[in-house]
């Protein structure tokens, strides 16, 4: 596969291209990726900043309130080629499907939206979700659908966690989410469901584990053969 990188891109992203895990093809995938950013706040702003810096140029911001102009300006500050389109908050599963169509990855704050996860499964779009609390960060990477984060992570359904209690933790969470989104875009790892939990307190071991299939998964009922999300080569 020819990467098709122009000289300016080859120069600007030379350090990433030199990484064996990325290379020219991986950088071309980053440049072609479309990333949906769901929610607002410092974590999602930080993720946008790092994704734009790494070369992502096309964002879709899906927010309940009118924070879109702010997010768009953050991405454009870091990457002059970055463009952010505005998408109002979808009101049902069908609208979520339309909002996520054509996206390479969905990155969102919070674990509380079944309709969004279902729509991402149907649209074959991997999901990276982050949640921050007073001293902890959870990153959930669903490269194929389910299991339902409410069930497997014991997160109460309907709990809204779009606001971060500690700005420093939100910055860490945003950068972590950007790393995972880029790893998906580059396509190094196959389908997987992964959970990372970091507690910023003494003697707290981080938790990093594959998420097992749950028979009670709200999408597939535990059928792992259903609706596997492929790792997409590019966002089109």
């Amino acid at each position, binding site marked *: 596969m020819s990467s098709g990188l122009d000289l300016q891109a080859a120069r600007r992203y030379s350090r990433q291209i030199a990484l064996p895990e990325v290379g020219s093809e991986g950088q071309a995938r980053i440049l072609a990726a479309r990333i949906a950013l769901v929610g607002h706040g410092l974590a999602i702003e930080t993720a946008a900043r*790092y994704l734009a810096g790494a070369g992502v140029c096309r964002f879709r911001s899906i927010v309940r309130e009118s924070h879109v102009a702010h997010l768009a300006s953050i991405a454009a500050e870091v990457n002059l080629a970055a463009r952010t389109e505005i998408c109002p908050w979808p009101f049902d599963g069908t609208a979520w499907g339309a909002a996520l169509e054509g996206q390479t990855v969905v990155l969102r704050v919070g674990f509380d939206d079944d309709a969004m996860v279902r729509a991402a499964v149907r649209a074959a779009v991997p999901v990276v979700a982050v949640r921050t609390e007073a001293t902890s960060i959870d990153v959930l990477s669903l490269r194929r659908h389910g299991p339902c984060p409410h069930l497997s992570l014991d997160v109460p359904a309907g709990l809204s966690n779009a606001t971060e209690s500690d700005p420093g933790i939100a910055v860490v969470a945003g950068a972590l989410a950007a*790393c995972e989104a880029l790893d998906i875009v580059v396509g190094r790892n196959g389908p997987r469901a992964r959970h990372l939990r970091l507690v910023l307190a003494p003697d707290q071991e981080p938790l990093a584990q594959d998420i097992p299939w749950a028979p009670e998964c709200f999408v597939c009922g535990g059928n792992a053969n259903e609706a596997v999300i492929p790792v997409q080569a590019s966002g089109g």
Partner: protein
Amino acid sequence: MILEEPVLLVGAGGLGCGAALALAAAGLRHLVVVDDDVVEESNLHRQVLHKDAAIGTTKVRSLAATLAQLYPSVELTPIRTRFDATSAARLMQGCAVLVDASDNFRTKFLCNDAAVLARTPLVHAAVAGLRGQILTVAAGGLPCYRCLFEDLPAADAGVGPPAGPLGPVPGVLGALQGHEALALLRGTPAFVGRLLQYDAGSLTMRSVRLRPNPHCAVCGTRPTISRLDPSSYVAPGCSS
């Protein structure tokens, strides 16, 4: 919550940008940033506080300008100089925490020794490729960075090699440094004597508890380093 005590940030690159973002966002009042480098185009994929228009300008000025725009309440003192054995004590004067966001082993060992000798807490981090680590050294060490790594490697090729890192990886470690520096000021640090390692490729973190090394040259039972000697921070085989 506004934190009044100044933090010294050594390095305005990938780690430094992440640390500065977290420090400023969380309410630090006064940040001193030291770096002698200028912004290059190949920095921009990871050093997200430097803009295209800043290429060719000093990193400390560029970082100060962006941070002033994002967080006007932060008093930032940019110092364009090299953090070395002759300037370290002067630069650290009055700072409550030292954040090592440098990209080479010489400066990392120097930051460790300077912090231990001055009894100033240190937050160390390093990145390479898709991986990184963070360690907090308490005032006076026990344990410190040198307890684990002992001395400069034979050839100081730099902690950040020509390849990589993946853009947000130094952002993760730098932001953790910023958060940890503020946690030190609040008295609630998470990584004192504990090395946290992160691998973005496998979405994995693990931590290792360190013990003080009785043979450590700076905080051991019979320390051989009692002052900062410039000749001690030259990798074997290097002329400078």
